[in-house]
């Protein structure tokens, strides 16, 4: 067994390499500041903030299923609804780039290293009400505005509350 030291060294190296993300992460995060989360426009979120921090993805997954498959559209509880409240113009009057850390979702997602691909398809800035066809009347414009997520403020809903939507079944599928 002359090879024993070589084998053990190789195994140790492999172990080190396999766990590298943890070590590197630990080194990178020591002393670094917590993410700076951009302020939202409204006074309240659609759910308590603590609940949202932990569960926003569950809410998004459910409303996504309901909107796309069942046609149940809730203006506040939708991705455009989130965007219209959470994405604001920066000091220079422009919206933050979807890749910058000033973009609401990125503040945390870049910090924890969780990649999202929502915005490869979804608009990353608040809708303007441009949803109407040019000639449509006032009423049509009103409704179109509603459909794109109005930044209005609603009283917060408590998790597990009486929302009809909450009683609906969860989406039958999940991300792997």
């Amino acid at each position, binding site marked *: 067994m002359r090879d024993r030291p070589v084998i053990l060294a190789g195994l140790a190296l492999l172990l080190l390499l396999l766990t590298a993300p943890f070590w590197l992460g630990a080194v990178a995060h020591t002393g670094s500041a917590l993410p700076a989360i951009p302020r939202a426009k409204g006074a309240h979120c659609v759910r308590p903030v603590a609940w949202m921090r932990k569960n926003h993805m569950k809410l998004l997954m459910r409303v996504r299923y309901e909107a796309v498959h069942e046609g149940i559209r809730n203006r506040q509880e939708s991705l455009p609804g989130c965007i219209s409240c959470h994405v604001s113009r920066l000091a220079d009057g422009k919206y933050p780039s979807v890749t910058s850390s000033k973009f609401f979702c990125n503040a945390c997602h870049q910090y924890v290293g969780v990649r999202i*691909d929502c915005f490869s398809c979804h608009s990353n800035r608040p809708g303007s009400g441009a949803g109407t066809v040019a000639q449509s009347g006032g009423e049509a414009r009103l409704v179109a505005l509603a459909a794109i997520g109005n930044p209005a403020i609603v009283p917060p809903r408590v998790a597990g509350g009486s929302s009809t939507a909450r009683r609906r079944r969860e989406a039958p*599928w999940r*991300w*792997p």
Partner: protein
Amino acid sequence: MRAIHYREIDGSGGFWALVGLLALLLAAGLTAAYFMEHIGHIITGMSNQVVWGMPHVFAVFLIVAASGALNTASIASVFGRVAYKPLARLSGLLAIALLIGGLAILVLDLGRPDRLGVAMTHYNFRSIFAWNILLYTGFIAVTGWYLWVMMEQRLNRHSRMVGTVAFLWRLILTTGTGSIFGLLVARQPYDEAIMAPMFIVMSLAFGLAIFILVLMAACRAGARPLGDETLMRLKNLLGAFAAGLLYFLLVFHLTKLYEAKFSGAEAFILWRGGPYTVLFWFGAVFLGGVLPMLLFWLPPMRRSRAAVGWGSVSVVVGGLALVYDVVIGGQAWPLSIFPGMQVSSSFYDGVVGYYAPSLPECALGLGGCALAVLITLLALKLLPFLPETLADEGN
């Protein structure tokens, strides 16, 4: 019947050079896939008219050939022909390798290959495509099991049972692959149930041709004897499969010619389609069927090994031409949304779809082929798949 001794192949300098070359091809394919995903399919020749391109030609060819490569093993285990037994392991190995190569192309061509997990967890069981995902992965598992049973002496007695499962599985698999096209009622060049059995005959021919070529190359490079009797037996089988393919092509097109609704599409493939017509007659019919039969059976070449090799190459080239003709030619023919009418639009209605394969697509396709050969080579090197000698009995 003497005992068969299997042995790994030797890794000479030539072997590693070939491995290096294939690895380069594979790297080129992966690079192409990377750009196709990051820039988008805009860098390929595919469009909204021809939605499946060169990657699908290679993928369909490899997948079809994969199930056919298992023939030799099936003949040995299921139909009990002892003469084929020494070849059975290589046959199973090739089947797995070709299928993995084809699947890799198919997956990397997806618009969202990052969502492979979705494809594995969301099944629409009305979709023949979803069934194929299960059939393909299942085929790899069943053939792997079959190889194990063949290679582990204690389990040898089960090889007939497992071989039968693998044989039935491959028939269903190729039926599924043919049905991907055969069930498309929207497109006149497809829409024919006979495409399922036709794909089976295609698989028999393509798979055996590749098997013969790999066997000849491996025996030659490893200086292992390969008996005339073995080779001529395989040759006659391939000739019969090539004839079968011609027969199916004949029936397929006669059926279609007989139905008025297909006449436009048939005229396109058979005489007015420019490159697609050439591919059909020169590629599929001549190279894929007629030439191999001449090479195999014309009296002066009856015992020629070179003729066997070139005949197999001809089947492979003709097969690729046929698959290209089916996949691309079938899409190039415009949809008939308003039958009997003249149509024109900004969306190329009524116009033959234009398609020219791009470099990334070809790189991806060749990368898949390289992967298949690479798997085969490395497996041959690591495990005893190939007998020490395939010399004829009594020599």
